[in-house]
């Protein structure tokens, strides 16, 4: 039995069940169709493809794998999945929604930023902290404590350009990956959520979601939510150096695959349009956590006292 699902602006025709996407009600799939099929995958002679540690990329087809978990073959039309029978099913599904989908979308000239994002009425704002820096938490906070905010994406934000080269962000539809500390601070323990895998406490949490594409308005960057006040290397250098183009290029999901897929020109123009029109700025506590207990908790965490000497 095949299932019709929606992910990052694409209609997914899958014979793999994806509970991760079942709560997403968008019917907007303007970017194209991708099939997901179970099948045998043998990674062939890779010499005609660009090789990485767990991928081999070509103009028309690519392979992406994780030893002991799954192998995938990817074309513009379909992702063929060959999963190890002992691999956790939720992990297999989560991985399909990351690298293989990113590659398949690139074949359609659809590129993603690796950010978390929320929709605020008519526009989308994205958060880009260092990996593990709390951008998912920042997005969740906005939805929980601010009016009219809904989830747009967590790991992948697909952006296309409309006829006037305005960047349009497409909702991802797979919830937010949140760890116990964030769920507890945000009091989300009773929300609908899915286990990603039984060995890990991270959960896919479903909050009210945006289900239509809208204009990307702003990207906020920081090293991590704990260091919003500080200078940082990397992303903020790019902001202060007024190099938003470089920021967008470097933060494109799967950027190493764009050249071997043959989409360099499209990607260049995509980066340029986003850089010209989207505001890129340093995130601050005031922007992200203006009120509420979470702000107090963050500050408390930031000022933990260090006991200098044990009572012994």
């Amino acid at each position, binding site marked *: 039995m095949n299932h019709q699902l929606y992910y990052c602006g694409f209609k997914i025709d899958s014979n793999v069940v994806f509970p991760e996407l079942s709560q997403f009600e968008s019917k907007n799939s303007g970017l194209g169709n991708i099939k997901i099929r179970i099948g045998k995958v043998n990674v062939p002679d890779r010499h005609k493809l660009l090789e*990485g*540690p*767990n*991928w081999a990329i070509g103009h028309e087809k690519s392979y*992406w794998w*994780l030893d002991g978990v799954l192998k995938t073959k990817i074309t513009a039309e379909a992702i063929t999945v060959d999963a190890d029978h002992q691999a956790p099913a939720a*992990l297999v599904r*989560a*991985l399909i929604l*990351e*690298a293989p989908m*990113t590659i398949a979308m690139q074949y359609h000239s659809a590129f993603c930023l*690796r950010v978390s994002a929320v929709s605020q009425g008519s526009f989308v704002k994205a958060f880009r902290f*260092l*990996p*593990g*820096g709390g951008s998912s938490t920042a997005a969740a906070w906005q939805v929980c404590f601010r009016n009219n905010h809904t989830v747009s994406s967590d*790991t992948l934000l697909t952006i296309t350009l409309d006829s006037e080269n305005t960047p349009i962000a497409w909702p991802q539809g797979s919830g937010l*990956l949140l*760890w*116990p*500390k*964030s769920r507890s601070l945000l009091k989300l323990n009773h929300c609908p959520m899915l286990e*990603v*895998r039984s*060995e*890990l*406490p*991270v959960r896919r949490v479903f909050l009210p979601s945006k289900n239509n594409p809208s204009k990307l308005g702003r990207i906020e960057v920081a*090293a*991590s939510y*704990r*260091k919003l*006040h*500080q*200078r*940082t*290397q990397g992303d903020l*250098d790019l902001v202060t150096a007024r190099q938003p183009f470089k920021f967008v290029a470097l933060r494109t*999901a*799967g*950027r*190493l*695959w764009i050249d071997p897929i043959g989409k360099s020109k499209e990607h260049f123009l995509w980066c340029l349009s986003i850089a010209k029109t989207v505001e890129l700025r340093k995130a601050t506590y005031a922007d992200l956590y203006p009120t509420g207990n979470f702000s107090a908790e963050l*500050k408390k*965490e*930031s*000022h*933990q006292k*260090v*006991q*200098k*000497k*044990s*009572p*012994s």
Partner: protein
Amino acid sequence: MHTFWLASYPKSGNTWFRIFLSNLLYPEHAPVDPNHLPISNLIASARGPFEEILGFHSSLLTREESARLRPALDQIIARDWQDEICVRKAHDAYTLLPNGQPLLGEPPHFSALYILRDPWDVAVSAANHWGISIAETVDRMCCPGQNETKDLNATEQLPQQLLSWSEHVLSWANSPLDLCLIRYEDMYTDALPTFRKAVDFLQLPYDENSIEKAFRASEFKNLQKLETEAGFIESPRAGVKFFRKGIIGEGLELLATEQIEKLQEELEVVNQAIFNIGIN
């Protein structure tokens, strides 16, 4: 390119050495801004390149699974390294994966410069950095097989296996890697010969004058001043200084007698092993 691990237990002078190295390699930028080092800041356990190169969210894997992927990743990073020399910070202990492969590489492609600091001073500095008590820090440093426990939240780094303080040192000392050991205390009291030794190990062609200039540009009081003025990207939390004091023997004044004794036992094990192995 050959990878030199700049290895140490946390809070043992690793960052200070990288600032020295930046001032040495880029004298035109000296004194370098610690927030914008001209050399790469890429730690062995960084999530960023893991996610960028492999193509998925690292939170989806267990600590064992992510560790299994790191050797292949380090090879790719070394292959594509752009700087003059590939020196990367590492706080992990040198351990073996379940398949017997070392987490942090093998000779001849990897070697290590190890910085050793008196454990009582590490304890004071690490307690401040980790935001826990000195007692808890000493327990952690003396607990065999100790892992960092970060399972309730993701952080900017992949989980690292530190082991106890002495196990950490000995894991590197007993590794098959070509290893140069320098002591943090010597970086203060016998600075130029100590930095000379490290520079020679890294096969960098710099004379005494260049080394001295780089050392002067990296003096701790300058780093403290810069942190006060502009903050520091590696500080653990708001209001907590990274370049705190950097002095020798503070731990002997602040730790309780039994804590010093526990750490003294750890140090004796290390000193004896280093003597037996014959590391200079």
